[in-house]
């Protein structure tokens, strides 16, 4: 089953409280500020006790965002509908640089099953601390949490704060259960690989393409990524399940959706981005397998054939019977995915023009996934941070610089699947990146244990963990390793 409960698109005009001049509306600014400060306080409450100086400072900062607003607007009401935030009924658009904090805040609230916070009068520091510590200690996934918090607040004489339940459809529960989310993502991934195979074979044999099926899969992928991108992003470590080409297309689609989401594309365009990723290499269907799989150096004619695939792909889409918005996106992606930011690359253009954002996103995703694939000759290390470094170097020439930055923020400096040597001399694989930008270098790691001639899954550790004296982190990444050298297939640890 799939379901949808998401709010409206970001940046979609006045309905979102956006002014025509592009300036933030006051409630949006205040809302953003409130969420940032409240999140910091909530996070602090899970790390420090209530008398800690940091907590006092964070409480004061949060109060500065709450009380003046309550004073002027009579109340402060925050409602979370999936990961859409409505501040006094005005939707807060999430910008790319604040995406992570908003995302993690919505996840924290979802875990506690709290969907609404309301301040109906000004509050003082002890009351706010009481409230935040109550929230921080709630059970995960308990639907009655909101009742408990309200009762507790009442019993403590705090009447100015109330909370409401998180609304969700019955079947949405898998979305807050990470294991189910993982299973769901896995189904999407392998079904999509199969679909790309079907479509490619369909094109070869000139059968009708079931676009509807592809659309549904991409809608599911968008739903999954919007809820928690890490499950599907983790699966992009799969490079050679059945066929590299099909894996690559699905991986590009996943990267593209996740990147598009970060920069605020509406859902419809996100699913189109996914479709564009799936079919960006459709032009390769016309290249003989002997050429595609040739391991010797290609002849000039064979190179020409390879270099024609963006145009051939665009032409294939043009020939689709039905013609609409989606076809245009597919044409953009197919034609432009080997064009570089400075308009070099191929195909050679007859006239200078701007590359579409779709084209630029697919180019970044395509490049990254192509480079992180395992090399057969292993002359060069397979380390994604090197690739990210290279992408940064080439930003402005090969890639849109802003998109490269968003991409790095998205996959983290130690992307899922990175093999790392820790300060404890253990080795492990990154299995979850941190949404909090301050903790970008402290992902969750699955430790590896060597036995019976191979590395096996050990326990999971969170690199944010502090030692008992709280003076330093228990573990840190010393350096990244090439999994090929250790004969480790990282995808196995992420499926």
């Amino acid at each position, binding site marked *: *089953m799939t*379901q*949808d409960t998401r709010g*409206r*698109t970001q*940046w979609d005009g006045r309905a979102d409280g956006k002014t025509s001049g*592009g300036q933030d509306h006051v409630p949006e600014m205040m809302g953003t500020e409130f969420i940032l400060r409240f999140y910091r306080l909530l996070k602090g409450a899970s790390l420090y006790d209530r008398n800690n100086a940091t907590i006092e400072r964070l409480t004061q900062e949060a109060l500065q965002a709450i009380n003046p607003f309550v004073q002027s607007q009579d109340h402060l009401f925050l409602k979370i509908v999936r990961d*859409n935030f409505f501040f006094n009924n005005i939707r807060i658009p999430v910008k790319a*640089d604040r995406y992570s904090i908003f995302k993690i805040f919505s996840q924290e609230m979802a875990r506690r099953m709290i969907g609404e916070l309301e301040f109906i009068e000004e509050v003082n520091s002890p009351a706010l601390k009481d409230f935040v510590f109550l929230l921080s200690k709630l059970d995960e996934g308990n639907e009655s949490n909101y009742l408990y918090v309200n009762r507790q607040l009442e019993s403590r004489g705090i009447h100015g704060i109330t909370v409401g339940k998180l609304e969700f*459809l019955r079947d949405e529960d898998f979305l807050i259960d990470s294991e189910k989310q993982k299973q769901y993502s*896995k189904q999407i991934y*392998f079904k999509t690989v199969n679909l790309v195979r079907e479509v490619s074979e369909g094109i070869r044999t000139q059968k009708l393409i*079931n*676009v*509807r099926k592809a*659309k*549904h899969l991409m*809608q599911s992928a968008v739903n999954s990524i919007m809820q928690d991108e890490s499950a599907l992003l983790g699966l992009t470590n799969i490079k*050679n399940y059945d066929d590299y080409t099909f894996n690559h297309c699905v991986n590009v689609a996943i990267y593209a959706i996740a990147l598009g989401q970060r*920069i605020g594309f*509406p859902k419809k*365009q996100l699913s189109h981005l996914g479709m564009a990723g799936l079919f960006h290499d459709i032009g390769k269907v016309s290249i003989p397998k002997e*050429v595609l799989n*040739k391991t010797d150096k*290609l002849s000039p004619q064979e190179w020409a054939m*390879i*270099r024609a695939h963006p*145009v051939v792909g*665009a*032409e294939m889409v*043009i*020939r689709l019977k*039905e*013609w609409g*918005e989606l076809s245009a996106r597919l*044409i*953009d992606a197919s*034609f*432009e995915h080997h064009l570089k930011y400075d308009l070099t690359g191929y*195909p050679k253009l*007859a*006239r200078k023009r701007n590359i*579409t*954002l779709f084209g630029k996103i697919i180019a970044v995703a395509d490049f990254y996934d192509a*480079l992180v694939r395992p090399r*057969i000759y292993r002359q*060069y290390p397979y380390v994604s*941070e*090197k690739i990210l*470094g290279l992408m*940064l*170097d080439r930003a402005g020439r*090969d890639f849109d610089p*802003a*998109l490269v*930055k*968003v991409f790095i923020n998205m996959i983290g*400096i130690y992307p899922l699947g990175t093999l790392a040597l820790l300060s404890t001399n253990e080795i492990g694989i990154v299995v979850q990146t941190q949404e909090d930008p301050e903790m970008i*270098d402290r992902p969750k790691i699955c430790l590896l244990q060597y036995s019976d001639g191979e590395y096996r899954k050990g326990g999971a550790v969170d690199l944010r963990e502090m030692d008992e004296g709280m003076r330093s982190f228990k573990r840190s990444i010393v350096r990244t390793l090439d999994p090929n050298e250790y004969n480790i297939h990282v995808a*196995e640890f992420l499926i």
Partner: protein
Amino acid sequence: MAEDLEGEKKDLDAADEIASFEGEEVEEVFLHARDLMNIFVKTIKAFRLYPPENPSLVGFRDLLFRKFQFFLKRYHTFSFKIEEYDFSFNNRVLYENKELKTSLAFFLYKDGLRELRFMEGLEEWEIQGFLDIVKRGDQINKMEEDLVTMIWERDFVHIRYQATDEFLDEVPVIIPENIDQFRKHLTFEPLGHQVYDDYVVNEAGEEVNYYETMAKSSSSSSLSVNRNVYLLTPEELEGLRKEVETEASPISLFNIIDILFEIMALEKKPEPYRDSINVLSKLLDALLTLGEFQRATDLLSRLYIILKTYDLQGWQAKAIQQLAESAGDEQRIEKIGKVLERREGVRLEEVGGYLKLLPSNSLQPLMKVLGELSNPKARRTVCDAVCQIGKDQIDRILPFMEDRRWYLVRNVVYILGRIGKEAAIPSIQKALSHREMRVRREGVHSLGFIGGSKAFNLLVKALQDPDMRVRCGAALNLGKVGRKNSLVYLGELIQSKDFHRKEPAEKKALFDAVGIAGSNEALPMLQKLLMKRTWFRRRRAEDSREGAAGALALIGTREAKSVLELGQKSKNATIRRICQRALRRQASVPQKF
């Protein structure tokens, strides 16, 4: 009004489909839910049945919205399960219809919808959006679209659904449950050499292997050390915001026009080339429907540039030529007419720019549109375009002189005048005897544009037109066309005994015409009229002096100025005043020699 819609239209009657609770004691919530379901079903039927412009639809929508508001305020959500033939609310069937063709339940069910939920806070745009989807649901291609996709894409805040994706499992897919199953499907074939991604062109234009570049690069270490390298600046954030906004707008789809032209520049095979041309043709239609004339102009201009500058094969040139020609097709011009009539948001200068590029086969359709347009500014835009397109094709325009609509005939006369071909004069001569004064007046103006002896003679005749406004126009254009030859006729009228009986406007026009003729030969007559002393009928004499002084100022030669300067020294205060005013007027225009 909306309340009256209930039960009024038999086609929409849902009485047989909605549950009856007669003789039963039921909870109030079921009665309210049934009432809401009844309107929900009727409204959807109306939206599927009636054309979008039908005014009843607004009434239905508003009524449904009010019913929802009432229900949701009381019960917070309205959700119902969708089965093959029925809708049930809290396990109670509220709607049932087993006729597959007419069953609304089946209509939603077949696309995979299994539950719909409307929540408190539901907004009007969401109801309208939902109804639009249902309406479109009948026309979609099932291989591409379905109701679930459309609802999903609209991203409603207060409408949620559950759907099944069973069709995705038609072909069983193996999902590896464990590492062993996963390993079974891994392939370890060597990768092909088509690792073109591995190459980058350096500053010297040489291909460099990315992996070698990477191995030498030290920048990767900076990622963990210096976070600033991947922090977005406010400018980058704003740039991305704008790009997303632009790209998400439907207009951005027209970016592919560039790609289609690129394909045409690269492609040497007829089939894909023609495919691109066909898509361009569809895009041109879309641009015209949306009123995107600037882009349409660009598209058409590029076709002409390709035709003129590219080294094309015969079939390529023919394909482009055909597309360019099709821009003038009647259907396309009709579309433009509709956009022009809409008035709002249409930039006429952009429309004009596009129309002027049209081929000559557009002339007749454009004239038809001209006959139907009511917006005067838009008519002018079309006229100007026809002038440009039809400058060598007046035969295609002339038949419209016979049209029964006087305003269209006037436009034709306007166009013929601006084209300025003498061949049009017989048609304009006909216009000079048209029953409608505005046609005749346009006729004399057009003769002024065409000029020549034939025009001159017709203008002389038009000085006798029964309508003063036509005579004024004729006089002014006679002065313009005939120059000094016109003075005989103009002078005769000015000096005639009946001149004083003419309206001031006509007197002024006649003097102005003498001025426009611009000849010193008129000076003796004008000087005489200016200086003439009279003891009687002073008012009449003063009118003539004013006219003469004005004409002298218009003639603008040194000699004409001398006459006015002489008048400025006159003992007669009136003459002095008139001449001073005329000289001031003259000073504002450059002197003629």
